């Protein structure tokens, strides 16, 4: 079945009507999405313009490169300048600034930085070169099984010139921290479809404990409208539950084989989310068994310390405390061509989405 069925205008109109009806029975509600692809699709499809005034969509920390600490980028960029060192990174991270520099800048200065679309490409790179290759293992649960599988291949092959610098982040623990902040007033979550394809619906139990509903949501127009509609329906009924509106991809149990692999390779650890703070058990580190392939051990890399560029409000944007347009730098000192903070650099950042699709005059 192609995606046209999930973008059918007639069904979309019926969902928009249902949303309006439900909204009349509610005070102002704030629904947070925590997936960069949701942020972009909501903007691209003009979903906000279809919603009643009292239904606000706010973007949370759904872009893994936006929350990767500046110190992580600086540490890798610095290492890249050494002779014989090659960095393999996802393109998403390429232009994101650290405090001192970005990968793009060190590449321009002659460093070997290669963009890869899969951790398998990092393996291939290591097989055909003698120098050290460092792979930047960033991403949420959607990406983690892929890097875990590649790490296992790496150890089996014994490729001793490849190591991973891990900055994976986990979505469910982050939601729990956001909910603990009463100033955010989140009424419900549009939960990330492809993260959920791995973790399953059961991973969001903390939401229910905190009394906030969530709906696992896909990426086509009907998915997004159905996710919003279902959340409003739960709010009207005062029902606190996690529902799944993306059943064609997300089975209740997620992907158990992928979850086992993640557990085999990684241990949870406290982790810094750029601009937001340290969240307990919200990151991963390689298990001691894989220490020989851990770039933080091999090169003594550290990603501690938390600095933001002067005047940058990405931290408040990532928590949904302010809209991108409310940052004093937005659209003036900070634009996609000349970005200051990570939310404007990343193609899935909240500020980039607001700049591209917003109603700026």
């Amino acid at each position: 079945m192609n995606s046209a069925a999930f973008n059918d205008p007639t069904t979309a109109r019926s969902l928009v009507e249902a949303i309006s009806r439900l909204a009349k029975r509610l005070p102002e509600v704030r629904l947070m999405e925590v997936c960069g692809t949701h942020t972009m699709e909501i903007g691209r499809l003009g979903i906000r313009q279809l919603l009643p005034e009292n239904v606000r969509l706010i973007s949370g920390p759904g872009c893994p490169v936006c929350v990767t600490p500046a110190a992580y980028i600086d540490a890798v960029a610095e290492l890249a300048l050494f002779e014989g060192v090659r960095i393999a990174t996802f393109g998403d991270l390429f232009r994101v600034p650290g405090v001192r520099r970005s990968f793009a800048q060190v590449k321009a200065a002659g460093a070997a930085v290669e963009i890869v679309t899969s951790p398998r490409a990092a393996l291939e790179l290591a097989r055909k070169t003698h120098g050290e290759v460092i792979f930047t293992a960033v991403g949420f649960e959607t990406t983690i099984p892929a890097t875990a599988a590649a790490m296992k291949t790496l150890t089996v092959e014994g490729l001793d010139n490849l190591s991973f610098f891990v900055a994976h982040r986990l979505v469910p623990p982050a939601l729990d921290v956001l909910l603990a902040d009463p100033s955010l007033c989140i009424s419900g979550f549009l939960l990330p479809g492809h993260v959920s394809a791995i973790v399953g619906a059961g991973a969001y139990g903390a939401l229910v404990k905190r009394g906030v509903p969530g709906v696992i949501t896909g990426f086509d127009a009907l998915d997004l409208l159905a996710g919003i509609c279902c959340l409003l329906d739960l709010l009207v009924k005062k029902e606190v539950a996690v529902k799944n509106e993306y059943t064609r991809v997300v089975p209740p149990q997620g992907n158990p084989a992928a979850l086992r692999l993640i557990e085999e390779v990684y241990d949870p650890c406290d982790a810094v989310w750029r601009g937001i703070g340290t969240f307990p058990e919200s990151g991963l580190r390689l298990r001691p068994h894989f220490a020989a392939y851990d770039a933080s051990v091999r090169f003594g890399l550290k990603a501690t310390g938390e600095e933001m560029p002067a005047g940058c409000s990405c931290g408040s944007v990532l928590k949904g405390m302010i809209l991108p347009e409310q940052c004093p730098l937005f659209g003036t000192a900070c634009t996609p061509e000349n970005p200051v903070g990570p939310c404007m650099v990343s193609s899935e950042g909240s500020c980039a989405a607001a700049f591209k699709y917003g109603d700026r005059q």
Partner: protein
Amino acid sequence: MCLAIPAKVLSIQGDIAKVEAGGCVTTADLSVLLGVKVGDYVMVHAGFAIQKYAEEEALANLELIRDLYRTIADHE
């Protein structure tokens, strides 16, 4: 970054499948998803198949979405 696209499995050799999406043929690693067969649709992210995508599930999903607004209309 969590973009994943549906692709059809054309052939399988060990853990690697040849897959087709939107007319493009590429490879996908099957080592994180169990029980994939030739002819299946899978969601591919970062070179790995992360979940299955079945035609009948898609139809059921569409029905679930339609049920949502039908039920709300009935409540009024």
